[in-house]
């Protein structure tokens, strides 16, 4: 915790004043013990038409969505009855998983994710995190009580009996025999195409002290990836990767009915809608949640949440917004709600409707490292006790995680293999949305005249690892955590922003809308996305995608040199009249402007040349050759040249050499030097104050 930084912010906040609570007509601040609105229990599940003979089916309920029919092809139905021990941070649960075999072929084995086993010293996750870095624990100080685990105690397949003995840990990605994040169940009898199968699982999960934004901290818990989860049959094979330090998740759509029993004093939030809440005689409570057309289920509990609830009228119907705030952050609840509403508004207008009936925004325990995570209809924010209005961290995180409701939640891409399709596309839409809400150059920081915009931040993130990895590759294949972040988030956002320059902002907006509407509630591939852009724009963009998405080429254009001299320079040398003529502006100058492609990324670009008579010329350079030279004969000298004068290319590695001014401008140097001078003098005085 950086106290100096906090003090600076504290002082700044005193100056800015505490924001008064406003716009609460639609909001209600509930007491900590208040229970959230309980939805009506679901009607008896309608069974699928091709229900299995044994009566197993996937419900067609629509309780949790603003639609009268299912929106996804439902493959799974999880019914979980879990009891949480807050002292031990463990879950003891039973899970009934109904699976509809829509693969078109018989399935004789089923892989399951056991994500919480990643938080063991010998797991692939921890090994990678130690080498590549991670956002979590310093593992050298990691103790056993902080580990996590997930164990299937018993698994029974209806009609096939107890198959616990058939379970076998596998490591399909790296062969690490100590990694237990994937377990495979071999069936004695294959499941026919179109048939249903039901697994009855008893399992125990021990949460780690927060890792990968799941687990406990003090008396807080965030239950993410906490139950055995079946893999996805995708592209003709099971897709069930081990849990890696840089990967997230992939799962089929379905229905979730989850019953959680936990201490009565806990305030709970979860994916889906609350259908029942009851207190038990043993000082516990049981809450039951139902989710439709989602592919994961997360929950949180803490005795200290303060709850703010309101309603948002979305395109498909009302959405119950629920904010679970830390007591020390209660004054920021309104800020969280405001950005949620504004983000919802932009996403619905630009990309498509949000169909779910709920959205829960969780402000997690301080220092829990559980902030900034997305689950269906459930996101975690990130803030601090003191957050000046000009520092838009809460807005940034809430917007980003909400964006994942679209790019991950509904357009459910494979986060193991194409992390850029959720994080990167989401970072791109984050730039668009935050630009629109908070300003293009001020969407992250706008305090004391110091500004930082989201698109700049994404570009800087890209620059930190510009030439290490291509975008299109498995999330666990990146050189490092930095490269994963820089490329997956920053490069993808920058590449898509640059694409706007090629196909136009409108075409890009239409492409994004089309992509969402076409692929929501499915698992699109990278080509699905890229082809959608080509189709909507009507342009062949392979040359761009091959370099920007599939390649690791780096763009760096520069203005190499500028020369202007009198055409009749030889006369001017000996003739005083010619010199006078020059002074009167009658001299004709021969001017050259040379531009250079330093990197290996080839992309046409505009060049703007300005002359000292105010004239401006725009040139188009295809950049196929390494350099080109533009020449002019005018009664004016060139004063400046600039590549990409509209500043639409976000992937150029160096923006400073994109332009050249003939006459040096000293003011910017003096300005930054003045800051440096002030700091140096302050340092001198501070030493003089204390040391002598």
């Amino acid at each position, binding site marked *: 915790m950086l106290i100096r930084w906090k003090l600076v912010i504290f002082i700044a906040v005193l100056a800015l004043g505490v924001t008064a609570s406003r716009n609460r007509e639609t909001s209600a601040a509930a007491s900590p013990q208040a229970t959230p609105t309980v939805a009506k229990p679901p009607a008896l599940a309608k069974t699928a038409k091709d229900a299995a003979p044994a009566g197993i089916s996937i419900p067609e309920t629509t309780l949790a969505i603003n639609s009268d029919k299912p929106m996804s092809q439902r493959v799974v139905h999880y019914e979980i009855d879990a009891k949480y021990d807050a002292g031990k941070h463990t879950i003891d649960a039973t899970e009934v998983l109904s699976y509809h075999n829509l693969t078109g072929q018989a399935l004789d084995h089923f892989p399951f994710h056991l994500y919480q086993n990643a938080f063991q010293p010998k797991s692939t996750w921890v090994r990678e995190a130690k080498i590549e870095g991670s956002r979590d624990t310093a593992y050298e100080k990691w103790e056993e009580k902080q580990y996590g685990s997930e164990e299937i105690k018993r698994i029974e397949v209806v009609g096939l009996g107890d198959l616990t003995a058939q379970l076998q840990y596998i490591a399909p990605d790296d062969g690490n025999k100590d990694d237990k994040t994937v377990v495979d169940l071999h069936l004695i009898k294959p499941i026919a195409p179109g048939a249903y199968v039901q697994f009855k699982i008893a399992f125990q999960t021990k949460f780690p002290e927060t890792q990968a934004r799941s687990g406990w901290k003090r008396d807080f818990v965030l239950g993410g990836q906490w139950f055995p989860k079946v893999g996805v049959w995708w592209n003709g094979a099971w897709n069930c990767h081990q849990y890696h330090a840089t990967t997230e998740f992939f799962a089929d759509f379905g229905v979730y009915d989850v019953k959680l029993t936990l201490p009565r004093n806990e305030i709970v939030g979860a994916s889906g809608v609350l259908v029942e809440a009851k207190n038990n005689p043993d000082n516990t409570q049981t809450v039951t949640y139902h989710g439709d057309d989602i592919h994961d289920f997360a929950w949180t509990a803490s005795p200290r949440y303060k709850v703010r609830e309101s309603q948002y009228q979305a395109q498909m119907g009302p959405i119950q917004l629920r904010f679970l705030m830390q007591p*020390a952050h209660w004054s920021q609840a309104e800020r969280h709600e405001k950005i949620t509403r504004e983000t919802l508004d932009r996403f619905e207008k630009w990309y498509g409707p949000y169909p779910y009936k709920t959205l829960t925004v969780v402000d997690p325990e301080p220092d829990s490292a559980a902030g900034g995570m997305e689950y269906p209809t459930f996101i975690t924010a990130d803030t601090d006790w003191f957050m000046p209005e000009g520092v838009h961290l809460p807005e940034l995180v809430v917007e980003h995680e909400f964006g994942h409701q679209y790019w991950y939640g509904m357009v459910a891409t494979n986060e193991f293999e194409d992390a850029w399709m959720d994080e990167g596309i989401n970072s791109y839409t984050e730039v668009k949305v935050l630009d629109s809400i908070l300003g293009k150059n001020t969407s992250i920081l706008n305090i004391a005249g110091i500004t*930082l915009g989201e698109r700049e931040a994404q570009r800087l993130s890209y620059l930190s690892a510009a030439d290490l990895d291509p975008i299109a590759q498995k999330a666990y294949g990146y050189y490092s955590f930095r490269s994963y972040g820089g490329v997956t988030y920053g490069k993808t956002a920058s590449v898509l922003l640059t694409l706007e320059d090629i196909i136009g902002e409108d075409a890009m907006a239409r492409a994004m809308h089309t992509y969402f509407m076409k692929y929501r509630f499915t698992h699109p591939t990278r080509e699905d996305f890229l082809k959608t852009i080509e189709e909507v724009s009507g342009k062949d963009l392979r040359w761009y995608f091959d370099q920007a998405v599939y390649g690791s080429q780096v763009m760096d254009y520069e203005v190499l040199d500028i020369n202007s001299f009198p055409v009749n320079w030889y006369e001017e040398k000996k003739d005083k009249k010619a010199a006078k003529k020059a002074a009167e502006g009658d001299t004709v100058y021969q001017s050259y402007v040379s531009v250079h492609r330093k990197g290996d990324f080839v992309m046409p670009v505009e060049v703007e040349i300005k002359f000292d008579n105010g004239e401006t010329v725009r040139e188009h350079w295809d950049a196929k050759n390494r350099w080109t030279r533009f020449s002019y004969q005018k009664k004016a000298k060139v004063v400046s040249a600039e590549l990409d004068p509209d500043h639409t290319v976000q992937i150029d590695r160096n923006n400073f050499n994109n332009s050249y001014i003939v006459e*040096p401008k000293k*003011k910017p140097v003096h300005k*930054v030097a003045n800051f440096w001078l002030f700091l140096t003098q302050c340092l001198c005085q501070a030493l003089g104050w204390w040391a002598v």
Partner: protein
Amino acid sequence: MSENKSLLGSGWGRVLHNKRYIVWFYVLNVFLGLFGTAAFVNQARPILEHSLQSERLLHGFSLGVLIEMFSRPEFGPTIASRAPAMFLALLFLVATALFLPGIFQGYASTYRLPREDFFRACGRNLWRFIRLMIVAGIVMGVIAGILFGVQVALVKKAEESTNELLSVYVELASLTVIFLVMTVLRIWFDLAEVDIVLSDQRAVRKSIGASLRHTFRSLGHLLAAYVVATLVAAIVLLAGLWSWMKLVAPENVVGAFFVGQVTLLLLLIPRFWQRGVAVSYWKETMMIPGVAVRPLESRPVTMAEVSDGAPVFPAPPEPTPGS
């Protein structure tokens, strides 16, 4: 309170009567600061001077552009611009230590101290000050180390609490305590410095001992005076930064330079004020009075009478031969 006022007032009076010292130190501060900035300018100039991108730094303050500038390979390692700044800050410290004895001598004088006396005081006390600085460095370093260690442990413990603000309060409270303790140490060694100079004390340990006793004897008054001066410094800094942000247009480099330099000049005053307070305290309380000399008894003066050309004083006897 009245004693505080008199200490602060007396110290302030010494500062006012010797304004030139502040001006000298300010000039030295600017001079070293400019040297410390030269490397930074040399690194930034090739990137910014001919680029239109640098306009974004001029008409606002884009953090993104600044970060990109620092990350350019041609800017070079940031240590190349940080190291000269650090080095020259150390040089300022050395210069302060060198000239401080003269300043104390000047503050203690009731007249304008001649230049030669100023530099004589500086030269005579240089080695004593170096020894004192070493002792002060060790004492302050050890105590600061212990205090910050305790602070970190306390904050860590407080962070285990479910009350998020507890650790913040603990941190603020512990930093306040650390500030007060370090200020007490500063008072102690300021008094020792004054004592060394004004008592012409060669045995530094004696000044350290005497100053320690006096620091605790008058802790309340001295600490209050020092804290007031520190608060004034904090207000000056905040007011300066506020003026810079609110009153100066982003592209007004000259205005920004002026506001920054005025702030820095004013920031020097509170520390000199503290030193003036130390000198006043020393003169009022610590100064050992000279040996009391009983006034000579006055005797009536017998005027010699002159009469008849007789000598006033008898002539010395003639030397006798052989004697």
